[in-house]
């Protein structure tokens, strides 16, 4: 039965989503219980894959529809003929994050989103968004990747415009969908170019026979541009604040992790698809790495400087996600740049791998703390009915839990010890310094500005006199919201205090899964 877990993880939420319109006629409670159970089941199945994949380092394959699901390539052939799911360290790492986020955000949105006829659709789209992420992370087939990317973007766009009664959200949804659709169209063009030469859509097969011809490079550029845009990297990041600021808070947290899923796709493309340095005439990995690094540095700088002057709290945090995405890109970019340097792998082993460890570890740390901060932004919105920091004051008098978790999240994302992002940022600074000192200095500077802008949020929203005349909702927070935020904060503290265990258990297998192709 364990052989079927990779496909069950995707198929079970799909089944529940399909019957959800019928179930939700029975009432709110059965619907919530069913959805909660299925998200929990997905998480349990993901955790049950951990010993096999993470500890024993096995790569699980599941061929959908085949008579022998464990055999990827049929006998007598050199290529797979069906869609193959591949669970390695990196995909399981990202899938664990997605599952965790879905659970927390679902708990948070149980009471945060008011009960309304539309909430049925909200739950449904939420479930499908999770499925899209998981499918995108597990699949080893380029076209299947495209399909799941499309599922992810459509559900995201619909959820962004959940508050249709206000004038901005539909336009924000339109923007998100347009950007995603163009990205996926470009991606599909790249897929077509690959298919034209190799006659296959399987990533590992294409990797094995990769020639790095002109067409391959063209496909690489199309995929790179598409996924970087989807992930919100620097010159193409302008849609991020516009859409993140209009979505409800749990959806924004999900959007954070979904942009990480696109980033996952980008890294996969760089390594799993094009990362074969064996053939004669390869692409210049140094150039590719520097493109990613420059994209990352631009994202960091532009994101944080723009965040500093915002006074819409969600817009501020959205600019921060742009800037933190830069860290990830920088770490992986250094890894790509030294991946095939002509020194026998010395640079890669001494600091390239550390930089990648920092980058991948920071994916986890950043998304958890940023998710937490977006959830607290949801609390602010609930209290004051607006996201404008000018009209907020004195939340610390009333919501002590929110204040505490906000402090934890803000300190964590600014890289203050002993929270988790410090260890990943430390790894990044130290290794990137060996590669190019300027990058490291910029990264530290950006960290300082991050702390400055969160100080601003803390000052405006939490400090100051407690005024009940500007509050729109004075009820104490529901247990679900507090539980969601507390789980996130606990995750920050646990990973912050056990960085070496997290690195060993999760990040190292992730790098192995990303770099090693059989």
């Amino acid at each position, binding site marked *: 039965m364990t052989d079927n877990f990779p496909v069950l993880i995707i198929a079970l939420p799909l089944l529940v*989503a399909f019957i959800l319109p019928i179930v939700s006629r029975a009432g709110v409670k059965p619907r919530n219980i069913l959805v909660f159970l299925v998200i929990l089941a997905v998480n349990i199945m993901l955790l049950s894959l951990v010993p096999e994949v993470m500890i024993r380092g096995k790569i699980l394959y599941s061929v959908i529809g085949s008579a022998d699901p464990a055999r990827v390539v049929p006998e007598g052939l050199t290529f797979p003929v069906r869609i193959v799911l591949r669970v390695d360290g990196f995909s399981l790492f990202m899938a664990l994050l997605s599952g965790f986020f879905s659970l927390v955000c679902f708990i948070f949105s149980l009471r945060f989103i008011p009960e309304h006829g539309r909430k049925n659709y909200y739950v449904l789209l939420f479930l499908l968004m999770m499925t899209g992420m998981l499918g995108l992370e597990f699949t080893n087939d380029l076209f299947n990747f495209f399909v799941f990317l499309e599922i992810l973007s459509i559900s995201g766009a619909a959820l962004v415009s959940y508050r249709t009664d206000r004038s901005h959200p539909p336009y924000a949804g339109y923007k998100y969908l347009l950007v995603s659709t163009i990205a996926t169209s470009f991606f599909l063009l790249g897929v077509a170019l690959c298919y034209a030469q190799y006659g296959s859509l399987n990533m590992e097969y294409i990797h094995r026979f990769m020639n790095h011809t002109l067409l391959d490079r063209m496909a690489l550029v199309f995929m790179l541009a598409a996924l970087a845009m989807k992930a919100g990297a620097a010159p193409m990041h302008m849609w991020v604040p516009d859409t993140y600021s209009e979505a409800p808070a749990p959806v924004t947290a999900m959007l954070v992790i979904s942009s990480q899923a696109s980033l996952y796709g980008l890294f996969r493309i760089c390594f799993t698809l094009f990362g074969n340095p064996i053939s004669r005439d390869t692409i210049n990995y140094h150039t590719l790495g520097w493109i990613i690094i420059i994209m990352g540095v631009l994202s960091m700088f532009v994101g944080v400087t723009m965040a500093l002057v915002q006074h819409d709290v969600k817009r501020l945090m959205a600019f921060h996600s742009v800037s933190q995405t830069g860290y990830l890109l920088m770490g992986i970019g250094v890894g790509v740049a030294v991946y095939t340097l002509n020194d026998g792998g010395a640079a890669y082993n001494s600091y390239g791998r550390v930089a990648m460890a920092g980058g991948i570890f920071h994916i986890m740390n950043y998304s958890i703390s940023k998710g937490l901060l977006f959830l607290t932004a949801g609390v602010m919105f609930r209290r004051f009915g607006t996201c404008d920091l000018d009209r907020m004051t004195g939340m610390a008098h009333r919501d002590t839990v929110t204040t505490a978790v906000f402090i934890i999240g803000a300190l964590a994302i600014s890289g203050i010890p002993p929270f988790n992002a410090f260890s990943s940022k430390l790894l990044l600074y130290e290794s990137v310094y060996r590669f190019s000192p300027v990058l490291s200095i910029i990264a530290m500077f950006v960290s300082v500005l991050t702390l400055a802008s969160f100080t601003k949020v803390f000052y405006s929203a939490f400090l100051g006199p407690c005024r009940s005349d500007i509050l729109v909702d004075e009820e104490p927070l529901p247990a679900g919201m507090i539980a969601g935020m507390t789980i996130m904060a606990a995750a920050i503290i646990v990973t912050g205090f056990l960085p070496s265990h997290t690195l060993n258990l999760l990040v190292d297998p992730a790098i192995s899964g990303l770099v090693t192709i059989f």
Partner: protein
Amino acid sequence: MKLGSLLSLVLILGFLFVAVLRLHPVGQPLGHPGVMKDRGSAVTDTANIFTMDDYYIRNGQAETGSNNIVASVVFDYRGFDTLGEATVLFLVVSSISMLMYTILKQKKIKKDHFFKIYNFPTDISRIISFGPYLLYPIIIIFGAYLVAHGHLSPGGGFQGGAVMASGTALLLISSLFTIHIQRVRRVFSFFESLGLAIYIGLGFAGIGTSFLHNFLAQGNPLFLGRAIPFGPNPGYLNSAGLLPLLSLAIGIEVFFGISVILVTMYHVAMDGDIKDAQES
């Protein structure tokens, strides 16, 4: 900015033209010329097969029992993609229902109001008001034919479903059917879920081997499991195992899904017209 983007566009165009020269000439794709040679009765023949497409053409009939190789690719070899695509359609139907929820839940449009706006059906031509009633059964039967013969001839669940949904569009623009939109939408969305549930349920039925495994293909001829030889043949309705069933499920889903989209959009348009009429 404008100039820069225009220059970039032209540059990309130039690179694409260069790329075109590197692609294989039109009409000569990858593949082995021996793929069409006669073969024995083995289920899987892997001699002289070097690309995925050759594999499908040579073994699709024996493995899935479907004469239409595209259908066997869509529903068997890449059935998971089809599931994703059906999910996309379902997703869009749900999204549109969510976005238009407040508009759809407004109080019902009164009959006389409706007639006042559309001058309907008093000064409409007989052909438009009664023609659809004649055409509708024909369209539905043609769509159903496409769905049922998906594994034998051009067509399949998506095409047949889309054809049937065009019947809904015809009814919408021409008949009194539109007054009963509210009740009809719920029924449609129920059947849409049902179609998808059938598809994924058939997928789960094969989970003993693997998800979406075509376990009926080489089984009893009574249950769609008739084996067919390689090469041209007249086609048998009781072949191809799960394929006709999956095709049927997708046909149901697409028909009702597109119908829900059409009905919702039509309702929204009508609502806008009423608002405009009230404002003017």
